[in-house]
């Protein structure tokens, strides 16, 4: 019913274009840096292994992605929730 309502007033509702956009955004960055999704996974695992030596991290909530920045370049963006910093960090 709300779709009909939206259509009557010429409003848009989220359709397949959102899939197109989100898939393209990921793809174009990877085209640019020539890094495949399996390579990304491997990099993520290696980075996690290093951080885990210093901090107790929440492995399920780690985000690691490549994003396009305004200047046209690519930036590696990560969010790594830390449960607690361990004292094992001593070199």
């Amino acid at each position, binding site marked *: 019913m709300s779709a009909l309502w939206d259509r009557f007033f*010429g409003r848009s509702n989220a359709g397949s274009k959102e899939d197109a956009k989100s898939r393209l955004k990921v793809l174009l960055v990877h085209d640019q840096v020539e890094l495949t999704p399996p390579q990304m996974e491997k990099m993520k695992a290696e980075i996690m292994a290093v951080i885990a030596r210093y901090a107790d991290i929440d492995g399920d909530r780690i985000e690691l992605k490549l994003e396009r920045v305004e200047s046209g370049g690519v930036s590696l963006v990560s969010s790594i929730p830390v449960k607690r910093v361990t004292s094992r960090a001593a070199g």
Partner: protein
Amino acid sequence: MSECIVITSGKGGVGKTTTTANLGVALAMQGKRVAVVDADIGLRNLDLILGLENRIVYDLVHVIEGECKLRQALIKDKRLDGLYLLPAAQTRDKNAVSPDGMRKLVAQLKEEFDYVLIDCPAGIEQGFKNSVAGADRAIIVTTPEVSAIRDADRIIGLVEAAELPEPTLIVNRFRAKMVARGDMMSREDILEILAIPLIGLVPDHEDIIVSANRGAPAAFDEKSIVGEEYRRIARRVLGEADVPFVALDVPDTAWTILKRWMGLSGAREVAQ
């Protein structure tokens, strides 16, 4: 001051040849002297779209190899003063021409014409390199589809690598109704991804098929809405600012139809 513009896309079938033909016609209608050059050697089609296929004697490869004079190979469009076609060779392949050969050819054409438009072949190999060689700037043609946009992004990178200035974009086969219901990327969506200036938003319209059948580009047709967009693209190419896109005229809803009945608005229907 003359200029050479290459019309390119990466992906095939998005409308490079149609765009080149229509932009050539529209620029000539503005009183410019225009040469349209078919650089798709072995797969020529610009002649067909322009309705000049029966008048070819010599082609671009003949000129570059010195077998004829440039003047002998140029075909004058009898419908419009100032519009000329330099056809591609049909029986040769892309390696018959080098970037250097193209540069010299373009320099020669620029002495006689205000605008030299190059219809680039699909792909990113020799034909692309040749087409870009003599160009001063590039127009990228895409459609609102994921595959075309991906290839357009790649081509933008290659155009920048060829040290041309920032290219401009023409989005072809745009369907306002699909955009309105969220099933086609909008102008803003596409620009968010490709991030180059938009100079054309061409509605998907059956006039394009009809005009190709007849060999008379839609830009000739004063009543055609898609022809109108090509004429507006020509004005934008010539530097006119704030020329509205025909595809963004307000789409009809029950409310706009009602308003028009009551004489409150002159909103025009978007061609689909």
